[in-house]
C-alpha cells in the first residue's frame, strides 16, 4: 500500500500539498465530498428518526407526558405532553428530513459522488468545483430546514407534501417563518440537486476508463446515471414550485389561491410531477447497489444484466408519467385517473423483472452471507412487499378507500425503509473500507441487521392492518374516533417496536464510529469483488489512480469456469483478452 501511495504521490499531477481546509472542508475531491454527504445525511437520518419516535409516542399514548419530553420548550410540549401544533411539525419535518436530507442525500449525494469516478475509472468528477458547490448548498439547505423548528411558531405544519392553501397562508396553518423557511430550504436543495445531477451525467458520459463501454458499466453506475437524468428533469419543477409557493407566502401572489382565480390542484400537479420521479430517485440507486451486493454475495454474474439495465430505464421512464396516481381522489378529472392507473400498474413489470433477476442471480450461487449480502437479500424481500402493496393503490377504486390511511404509510415505509435504507446499510458496510481504510465489525453488523429486520417488520407490517381497517394518517389523537379506539393496542405494539428499532440503530452508529479508528485494517480487495474501486488503495489517494485502469470485461464475472479464484476483476488482462479500442471520450 505504501509503495503504491508513494508512486502516486511522485508521479501524479494532483500533489497533496493542500491545506487541511482544502482537503477536508472545502474539498473538491469526490471522495471527501461523498463522505461529507454521508455525515450530513446520517445526522438527518438520526434527527428524522427522533421525530418519528415522538410521533409514535403520541399515537400510542395520546396526551400522556413523553419520557424526556420535559426538556422541550413550552411551545412544543408543556410538561412533556405534545401539542397538536408540535405534532404537525413532527409529521411534516419527519417526512421532509427523511425524503430530502436522509435518503436522497444518502443515495445520490453519498454514492453518486463516491462511487461513480471509482467505478468507471476516473480521476474525479467532471466538474469538481460544481460538486463542492452542490454539497455546500445542500448543507445550507439542511441548516435552514433544521433551524425552522426553532423560530417563533415553529416549522411548517402542512405535511411534507405542502398542500396549498394550507401551506400558503398564515391564518390557515398558524405558522409563518417556518413555512417560508421550508420553501427557501427546498429552493437551495433544488440548486444542490441540479448541480449534482449535471455533474454525474457528464462524468459518466465523458470520463469512463478505456474499455469501460456502456454495457460493461456496473449496475450501480447505471442506476445512478439514470437517476441523475430523472433528477435533472424533476427537481427543477420542485424548485420552481417552491419559488411560486414562496411568492405566495411573502409577496401575496395568487397562483394557488381560488379566491383570486388560482388553482389549489396546480400545486399538487407540480409537486407530484417532481414527487413521483422522486420516489424512483429514492429507490433506483438502492436497486443498483443491491445488484452489486447480491452478485458479490452470490459469487455469480448478475442474471440478465441487459434486462436489468432496461428495467432501470423502464422504471425511470414510467415513473415520470404516473404522478397523477397520488391524486385519484384530489378532484382531478376521474378519466385522467384511468390513464394514470394504467401507467402505474405497468411499473409492476420492470419491478418484477428486477426481483426475479435478483432471485435468478442467487439461484445455484455459492452464497456468502456477509453483512452487505444480508442487507441486499433483505432489500429484495422487503421491496417485494412494498412493490406488491403498491398495486392496491394503483387500482383506482381501492385507492379511494385506502388513500391517506396507514396502508399508504406502510407501503411507503416498505419501499423507503425496507427497500432504500436496507440497501444503504449494506452499501455503507460494503464500501466502508474504501472510504476509511478499515472494516466495520462483522458480529455487531449482523446483530444490528437482525434487530433492525425484526423490529422494522414489527413496526411497519401492522400498519397494513390498521390501514385496511380505515385508520387515517396525520391524526394528532386517533382516539377521537370511536372506530379507531379498538386499534389502540395495535398502535402501542407498533410504537414499542419503533422504539426498539430506533434503539437498535445505536449499535450501527457505535460500530460506524468505533470502526473508523479501531476497526480491522482493510485488505486491498476485502470482498473479493471485480469492481475497479478495489484496484486502488483504501482510502484511495486524491486522483484515485496514478495510471487509470483499462477495462477488459463486465463487472460481474464471478465463478468463471477454469479460473482458480471465484472472481475476475474488470481490469485483469487474460491472454485471450484483446486490447480495447481507445475512444476519443476516454482519452481525457
Amino acid at each position, binding site marked *: 500500500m505504501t509503495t503504491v501511495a508513494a508512486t502516486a504521490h511522485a508521479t501524479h499531477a494532483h500533489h497533496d500539498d493542500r491545506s487541511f481546509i482544502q482537503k477536508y472542508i472545502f474539498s473538491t475531491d469526490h471522495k471527501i465530498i461523498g463522505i461529507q454527504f454521508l455525515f450530513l445525511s446520517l445526522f438527518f437520518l438520526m434527527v428524522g428518526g427522533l421525530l418519528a419516535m415522538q410521533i409514535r409516542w403520541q399515537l400510542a399514548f395520546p396526551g400522556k407526558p413523553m419520557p424526556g419530553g420535559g426538556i422541550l420548550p413550552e411551545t412544543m410540549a408543556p410538561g412533556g405532553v405534545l401539542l*397538536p401544533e408540535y405534532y*404537525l411539525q413532527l409529521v411534516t419535518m419527519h417526512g421532509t428530513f427523511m425524503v430530502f436530507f436522509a435518503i436522497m442525500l444518502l443515495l445520490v449525494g453519498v454514492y453518486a459522488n463516491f462511487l461513480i469516478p471509482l467505478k468507471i475509472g476516473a480521476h474525479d468528477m467532471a466538474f469538481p468545483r460544481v460538486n463542492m458547490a452542490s454539497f455546500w448548498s445542500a448543507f445550507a439547505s439542511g441548516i435552514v430546514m433544521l433551524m425552522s423548528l426553532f423560530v417563533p411558531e415553529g416549522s411548517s*405544519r*402542512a405535511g411534507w407534501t405542502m*398542500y396549498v*392553501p*394550507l401551506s400558503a397562508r398564515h391564518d*390557515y396553518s*398558524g405558522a409563518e417563518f417556518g413555512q417560508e423557511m421550508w420553501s427557501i430550504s427546498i429552493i437551495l436543495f433544488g440548486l444542490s440537486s441540479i448541480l449534482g445531477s449535471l455533474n454525474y451525467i457528464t462524468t459518466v458520459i465523458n470520463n469512463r476508463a478505456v474499455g469501460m463501454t456502456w454495457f460493461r458499466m456496473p449496475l450501480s453506475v447505471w442506476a445512478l446515471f439514470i437517476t441523475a437524468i430523472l433528477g435533472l428533469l424533476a427537481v427543477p419543477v420542485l424548485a420552481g414550485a417552491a419559488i411560486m409557493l414562496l411568492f405566495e407566502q411573502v409577496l401575496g401572489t395568487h397562483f394557488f389561491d*381560488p379566491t383570486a382565480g388560482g*388553482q389549489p*390542484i396546480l400545486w399538487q400537479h407540480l409537486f407530484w410531477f417532481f414527487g413521483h420521479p422522486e420516489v424512483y430517485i429514492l429507490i433506483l440507486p438502492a436497486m443498483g447497489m443491491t445488484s452489486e451486493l447480491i452478485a458479490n454475495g*452470490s*459469487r*455469480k454474474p448478475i*442474471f*440478465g*444484466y441487459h434486462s436489468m439495465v432496461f428495467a432501470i430505464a423502464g422504471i425511470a421512464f414510467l415513473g415520470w408519467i404516473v404522478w397523477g396516481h397520488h391524486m385519484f*381522489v*384530489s*378532484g382531478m378529472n*376521474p378519466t385522467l385517473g*384511468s390513464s394514470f*392507473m*394504467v401507467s402505474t*400498474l*405497468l411499473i409492476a*413489470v420492470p419491478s418484477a*423483472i428486477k*426481483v*426475479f*433477476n435478483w432471485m435468478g442471480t442467487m*439461484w445455484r*450461487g*455459492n*452464497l456468502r*452471507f456477509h453483512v452487505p449480502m444480508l442487507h441486499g*437479500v433483505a432489500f*429484495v*424481500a422487503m421491496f*417485494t*412487499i412494498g412493490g*406488491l402493496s403498491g398495486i392496491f393503490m*394503483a387500482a*383506482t*377504486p*381501492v385507492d*379511494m*378507500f385506502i388513500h*391517506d*390511511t396507514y396502508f399508504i404509510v406502510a407501503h411507503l415505509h416498505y419501499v423507503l425503509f425496507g427497500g432504500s435504507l436496507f440497501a444503504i446499510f449494506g452499501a455503507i458496510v460494503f464500501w466502508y473500507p474504501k472510504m476509511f481504510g478499515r472494516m466495520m465489525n462483522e458480529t455487531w453488523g449482523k446483530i444490528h441487521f437482525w434487530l433492525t429486520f425484526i423490529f422494522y417488520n414489527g413496526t411497519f407490517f401492522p400498519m397494513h392492518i390498521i390501514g385496511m*381497517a380505515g385508520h387515517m394518517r396525520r*391524526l394528532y389523537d*386517533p382516539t377521537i*374516533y*370511536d*372506530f379507531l379506539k*379498538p386499534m389502540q393496542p395495535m398502535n402501542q405494539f407498533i410504537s414499542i417496536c419503533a422504539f426498539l428499532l430506533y434503539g437498535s440503530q445505536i449499535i450501527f452508529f457505535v460500530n460506524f464510529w468505533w470502526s473508523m479508528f479501531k476497526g480491522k485494517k482493510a485488505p486491498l480487495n476485502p470482498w473479493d469483488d471485480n469492481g475497479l474501486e478495489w484496484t486502488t488503495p483504501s482510502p484511495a489517494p486524491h486522483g484515485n489512480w496514478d495510471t487509470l485502469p483499462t477495462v477488459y470485461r463486465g463487472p460481474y464475472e*464471478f*465463478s468463471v469456469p477454469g479460473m482458480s479464484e471465484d472472481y475476475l476483476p474488470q481490469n485483469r488482462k487474460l491472454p485471450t483478452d484483446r486490447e480495447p479500442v481507445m475512444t476519443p471520450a476516454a482519452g481525457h
Partner: protein
Amino acid sequence: MHWWLPPQGSTFAPQIDWMFTAILIITGITFVGVELGLLWFIFAYRERPGRKAYFTHGNTSAEIIWTAIPAVTMVILGLMSNGLWVKIKGRNSVPANAYPIGVHAKQFEWWFTYPGPDGKLGRVSPALVSKTTNPTGLDPDDPASHDDIVVRNQLHVPVGRPVVAYLTAEDVIHSFYVPEFRVRQDVVPGMEIRSWFEATVPGTYELGCSQLCGLGHYKMRAQVFVHTQEDFDAWMQQRAAQAKGGATP
C-alpha cells in the same frame, strides 16, 4: 381490534372489497412465492467448502416468461379496476334519482345542506359565507334555497337511495371520508365536486376529514345517520318545523 376491512355500508363496499380481495390473492401468491423462493435459495445455495457457483449470465426464455406474466396480470387488473372506477366516478355515474346534499367543509367542521320539500338545493356562493348567519353561503335570491335546511356536523341519509354530495370547501383542502361506505373525496376550495353513494345498512357511522387541514384536523369529525325512508322523512319534517320556528342547530 379489527383485522379486516370495515363493515360494508354502501353499494360500493362489496364491489371495492371484492377488488381488494382479488388483488390481495394475486399479490399474496406472488409474495409467498418470492419469499419462499428466497428462503429456499438462502438454505440450498449457502456457501460450502469446495462448491462453486453455476456460471450463467441469464436465460432469455425464463426472462420473457416472468415479464409476460406480470404484464398480462396488470392489464387484466387495470381493465377490471377501470370498469368499477367508471361506475363510481365516471361522468354519467350519478343516478338520475339521487338525493342531493350539499357538503361544505371548513376548518374544522362539516356543514350539510338538505334540499327541503322542493327537492332542490339552493345556489351557494363563497362570497356570501358568513360565520354567524350563513355558514354555507346559500344565495337568498335563489328561490330553491328558501326551504333548504342547514345542519352542522350531522349527515343524515336515507337507506337504499342514491345520494349525491356536492362538496365545497371554504378555506383549505379537506377530505370527505366514510370508511363503511368506502367513499373518499377531497374537498377543494374553488371547486364543486360531486360524489355519490348509496347506503345499505341503517345505523350510525363516523365521517372523518382525511386530508391534513390544520391544527384541528384530528377532530374534524361528523356523525352519519343512515335512516329508513320513513325515519328520514320524519327527521326532515321535524327539522323543517324547527327551521320555521327560527331555531338554529
